[in-house]
């Protein structure tokens, strides 16, 4: 029993990372119907920026995290402005390929500027662990989980209760009517990218606290897992993405429990393939019909 509870905490931790990143995929899909394949690499840039502030510039934790988040948000806005906006009227294939290109560009740019894997210094060495009934949880892990959940709650509030959230939902409903209501479409899309990329940046910081060795390709696999989470929940659906992240975390942890750990990726991708064929709108999405 304790073993399963212990694994459950791992589910919460990996699930939180996936959910935070999945939100970026799902929000961009919601407003632009486009899969931003570069999002996983934005997560990686977040971790590297955090490293830059913490280790190279020797700033304390909170300002470093804030600065990394703001800069990744700006990076998200910049990719939208310079790579995706010129293609808004173009066929979808162009956007997909461009997004792949942006992802590889971010990876290689990071690699060119910073050719070595880096080690995030341990910042919370003093933090202890709690244990109850044979289940051990480090305070750092607990903090990561709680903070992620807080961020998701904040986002859910923003989407459902604020004016900006209403504009985002309106754009995903019908982009052509929104400007007639006096809402700036470009502004709202930029804000969506900023929020999505900012959450990705936060995920990068939290992930690098838990797994301190960072390298330019770390965003590829995590980004894919997050994308699978978004598809599980129904891409375009914010709450679906949150649930999907934890579902994927659960599936992966179960795989590790019952099979060799190296089968984790194969399971995740097989799940994606099966979902796309049988239920492409995800667990919480609605099926789309198209007219001939």
């Amino acid at each position, binding site marked *: 029993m304790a073993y399963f509870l212990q694994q459950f905490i791992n589910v919460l931790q990996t699930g939180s990372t996936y959910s935070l990143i999945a939100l970026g995929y799902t929000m961009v899909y919601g407003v632009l119907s486009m899969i931003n394949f570069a999002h996983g690499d934005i997560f990686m840039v977040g971790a590297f920026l955090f490293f830059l502030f913490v280790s190279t510039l020797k700033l304390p934790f909170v300002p470093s995290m804030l600065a990394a988040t703001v800069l990744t948000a700006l990076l998200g806005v910049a990719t939208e402005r310079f790579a995706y906006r010129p293609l808004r009227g173009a066929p979808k294939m*162009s956007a*997909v390929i461009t997004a792949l290109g942006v992802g590889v560009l971010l990876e*290689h740019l990071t690699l060119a500027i910073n*050719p070595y894997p880096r080690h995030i210094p341990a910042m919370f060495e003093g933090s202890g662990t709690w244990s109850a009934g044979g289940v051990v949880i480090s305070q750092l892990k607990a903090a990561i989980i709680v903070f992620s959940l807080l961020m998701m709650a904040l986002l859910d509030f923003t989407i459902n209760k604020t004016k900006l959230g209403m504009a985002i939902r309106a754009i995903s409903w019908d982009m052509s009517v929104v400007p007639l209501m006096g809402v700036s479409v470009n502004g709202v899309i930029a804000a969506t990218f900023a929020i999505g990329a900012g959450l990705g940046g936060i995920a990068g910081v939290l992930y690098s606290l838990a797994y301190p060795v960072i390298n330019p390709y770390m965003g590829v696999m995590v980004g*894919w897992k997050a994308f699978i989470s978004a598809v599980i929940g129904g891409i375009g659906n914010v709450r679906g993405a949150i649930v999907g992240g934890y579902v994927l975390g659960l599936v992966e942890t179960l795989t590790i429990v019952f099979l060799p750990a190296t089968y984790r990726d*194969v399971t995740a*991708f097989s799940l994606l*393939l099966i979902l*796309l064929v049988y239920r492409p709108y995800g667990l919480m999405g609605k099926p789309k019909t198209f007219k001939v």
Partner: protein
Amino acid sequence: MMKIFRTAIHGQPAGPRRPMLAVIIAGFALSIALPYFGLLNKYVIFVLISVGINVILTISLNLVNGFMGEFSVGHAGFMAVGAYGAAVTSVNVIPRWMGAAAFPTAILAGGLAAALVSLFVAIPSFKTRGDYLAIVTLAFAMIVKSALENMDVLGGPRGFMGMQQFTTLPWVFFWMVLSLWAIRNFVYSAYGRGVLSIREDETASELSGVDTRKVKVLTFALSSFFAGVAGGLYAHLLQFINPSMFDVIKSTEMLIMVYLGGVGSIAGSILGASIYTILMEVLRPMGVWRMVLMPAVLILLMIFRPRGIMGLRELRWFVYKAIPHSGAAAKGQNIGNT
């Protein structure tokens, strides 16, 4: 939806075909003679072989992305299956004394293995289209890579070796011509009309009697066969393969060659693969920054010239009779059902 493909393409008049055969023979003779008489150094031969392999990859990806209008963005997966299939055949199946004589068998085995696994992508493509199919193909490539990493028999993440260096310039030239010839003839066949009609409007082509499922399975199989052939040649060129050679970066390279040369164009595939491969060799002194340039080129191409240099146009050489506009191509024919 697919605005960029609305141009008619294959309307050019007939051109003289005899020079084609002469060029092929001359090219083949040169590919034997130049290395034989030591007129090219090893590095130049290596670059030429890479160009040839990349032409095969580009034409095979172009068949799916350019001619059929589906998105495959995980073609490196097929290449990996071909590379491993060919390598295992030549190391473990074919007796060593047969040497280079059995090389085509190994390559064929790789190609057939790749064609077989293409069903994993072809069957989902019946129901999904567009960006979702792009995800299916990418996920497929990821699965292939992770599966290979998990197979200890094939060396796992350490890779597989033991192949002899059978890939020579004449062999690459032969397979390159074969792939161009096969895909060109396929595109101009009755099935090929079906392929083009799927690109233009899948529903309409189905309504006019194209068995779209059959056409898709065939096209994916042919395309991945040649991707597998390229993989086999690659494996016998480097004499060492490992799963991480066939990652997203490799797929991205193929996409760049297709979209640089031109979608839906045989001449464009040759052009794109040649320009890209030679450019990357010339820029080698740039080091890592060369790898930054590669995706940047792709993004700029997508924004400013999404169809590439020869997009939807063809050299007269590769067209052998006047064919009506592709939109009308499927009219009145029972493509795929015959």
